[in-house]
């Protein structure tokens, strides 16, 4: 892992842990798309190229413009400026019913007066498909989502998970060039969610359909997507694979938005080629980072350290730097791991994860215990923005 000192988003990131289905690199081109509502800028000159077969997630808090961008892709909103090009064809000015794009809605939007079968056939019928191939395609889709025995049911006779399968089948029936997912798991309970996430990814990857999804749930984005764009105030803050976004956040915003993080504000103290030290008023000794950063001595930076990257011990670690003394103030026990809230001697509170690898391991530490925390020279990220 190297430094992540750039304030601009990384334009085309290398793929992460998931199998890369690299096709044409610019299958979907979003070119400086802007959307304003009565002077309010919902999407602010956003550009991105999306590869063929990629699952791309727009991740952000509500009101960050992710849904508006998705609706621009679907054709329900017309961008104020910018172009959207899909598979070489400019679709910016096409109405939704002429775009080779289908969407799975958050509420599923199954037609209540039509059966499961008729719902799936709806899009095919609009294309004027003959009865028999249409029926074959419907059967195929029902098979794909394992809903064949529910073909004659009405949507209200299905459970939430089954409704979602039907909604997916309906949006895939026309073999769209682009599939849009709007908060795909939003209406499901937590247990069903993790199961459906993987199933959905499997189906999408089997068909090789390019997919843009919108979610506010980071876990969902990280499970499902090849690449994630973190959005804030209508702009992309960072684009990258799930592990890049987590391990190399490029700003305080992304670091804090994805997962939990301890941030130490400070100034660059020594700026050498192969290491830097950061002086933090909240820590007794300067932080030692074993790689160079693009910065200058005296520059204001933040040092981001994930809670699981820290060790906790009762005795003082032998290493010369990157340690601090404090008192356990709070313990959150999650079974598989515990989160210790430790108040350092200079008053700052940090979170530190401890994996309960042995039974009763968590009993080693209790409230008000004086402890030492420490971390490796390469474990944190220096943030300049």
């Amino acid at each position, binding site marked *: 892992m190297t430094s992540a000192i750039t304030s601009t988003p990384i334009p085309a990131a290398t793929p992460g842990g998931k199998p890369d289905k690299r096709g044409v690199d610019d299958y979907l081109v979003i070119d400086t798309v802007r959307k304003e509502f009565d002077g309010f800028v919902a999407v602010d000159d956003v550009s991105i190229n999306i590869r063929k077969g990629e699952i791309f997630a727009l991740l952000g808090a509500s009101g960050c413009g992710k849904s508006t961008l998705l609706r621009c892709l679907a054709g329900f909103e017309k961008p104020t400026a910018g172009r959207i090009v899909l598979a070489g064809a400019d679709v910016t000015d096409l109405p939704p019913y002429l775009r080779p794009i289908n969407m799975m*809605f958050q*509420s599923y*939007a199954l*037609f*209540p*007066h039509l059966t499961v079968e008729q719902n799936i056939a709806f899009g095919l019928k609009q294309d004027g498909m003959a009865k028999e191939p249409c029926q074959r395609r419907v059967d195929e889709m029902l098979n794909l989502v394992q809903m064949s025995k529910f073909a004659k049911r*009405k949507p*209200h006779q299905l459970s939430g998970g089954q409704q979602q399968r039907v909604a997916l089948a309906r*949006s895939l029936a026309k073999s769209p060039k682009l599939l849009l997912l709007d908060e795909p798991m939003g209406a499901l309970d937590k247990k069903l969610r993790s199961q459906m996430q993987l199933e959905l990814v499997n189906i999408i990857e089997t068909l090789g359909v390019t997919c843009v999804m919108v979610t506010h749930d980071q876990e969902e984005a990280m499970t499902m997507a090849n690449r994630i764009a973190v959005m804030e105030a209508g702009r992309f803050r960072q684009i990258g694979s799930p592990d890049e976004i987590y391990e190399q956040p490029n700003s305080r915003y992304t670091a804090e938005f994805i997962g939990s993080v301890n941030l130490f504000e400070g100034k660059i103290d020594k700026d050498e080629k192969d290491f830097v030290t950061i002086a933090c008023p909240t820590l007794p000794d300067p932080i030692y980072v074993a790689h160079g950063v693009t910065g200058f001595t005296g520059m204001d930076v933040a040092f981001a350290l994930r809670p699981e990257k820290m060790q906790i011990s009762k005795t003082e670690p032998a290493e010369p730097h990157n340690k601090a003394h404090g008192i356990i103030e709070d313990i959150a026990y999650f079974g598989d791991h515990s989160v210790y809230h430790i108040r350092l001697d200079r008053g700052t509170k940090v979170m530190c994860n401890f994996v309960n690898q042995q039974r009763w391991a968590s009993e080693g530490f209790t409230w008000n215990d004086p402890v030492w925390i420490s971390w490796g020279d390469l474990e944190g990220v220096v943030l300049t923005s």
Partner: protein
Amino acid sequence: MSNATRTSKWSWLFLGFGFFFLYAPMLSLIVYSFNENRLVTVWSGFSTKWYGALMQDDQMLAAAWVSLRIAFYTACASVVLGTMAAMVMTRMRGFRGKTLFSGMITAPLVMPEVITGLSLLLLFVSLSTWTGLDFARGMTTIWVAHVTLCMAFVTVVISSRLAELDRSLEEAAMDLGANRVKVFFLITLPIISPALMSGWLLAFTLSLDDLVLASFVSGPSSTTLPMQVFSSARMGVSPKINALATILIVGVSTIGVIGWYFMERAERRRQAEMQAAAKQ
């Protein structure tokens, strides 16, 4: 416990009083329709002769037929126009004068009928003068008058249903390749059909019992049932009117009960199916 019982006793009392207030006049009307005496208020024995007399009364029957036809045509036209107005009010993004338009659509709801009737009469008369065409007052003019009134009610019923309709249903249909016209006929209309039905019934009953508007714009050959009843009541109430009213009350409540029964049954089945689905 005793407190609760006492409260419930009082509730029953109020309920009884309310029902008495609402239905005692109708009940006495029904009872007296079987009165043998020709004086409405003097009971002298059971008889169905007034129902027979009603069936012989050609004027009354003709008026009833006129009213039913007008009500039918009014209901149909009001539903078509009301749906169109409701679509504009709920689906079109802000255009100039939208608020004014919405206000004017619903104005007939609060406008005194006497004024609506009078202005329509003036309109018909002046139209005949200006255009030279013959806007003879009759069924057509009553129909137009009733549509202006009923359409406002139907618009309110349908637009409230449209407003609560999940917009993503229409978007999904459009996303799947249906243009706006197809979306309306294949998705919107079927889903709001219960609202269309209740709007139709509302317009039908409103038209059927309207007296004021019809009196202004009717012609010599187009006496509606309420007009006929009103004029014959002025000559002295005949027990025939009681018989007619009884038939109307029984007819309306039968339709009401049947409608309620079917809706209730459908809703109960729906609930059961949803519970069954959730258990899977």
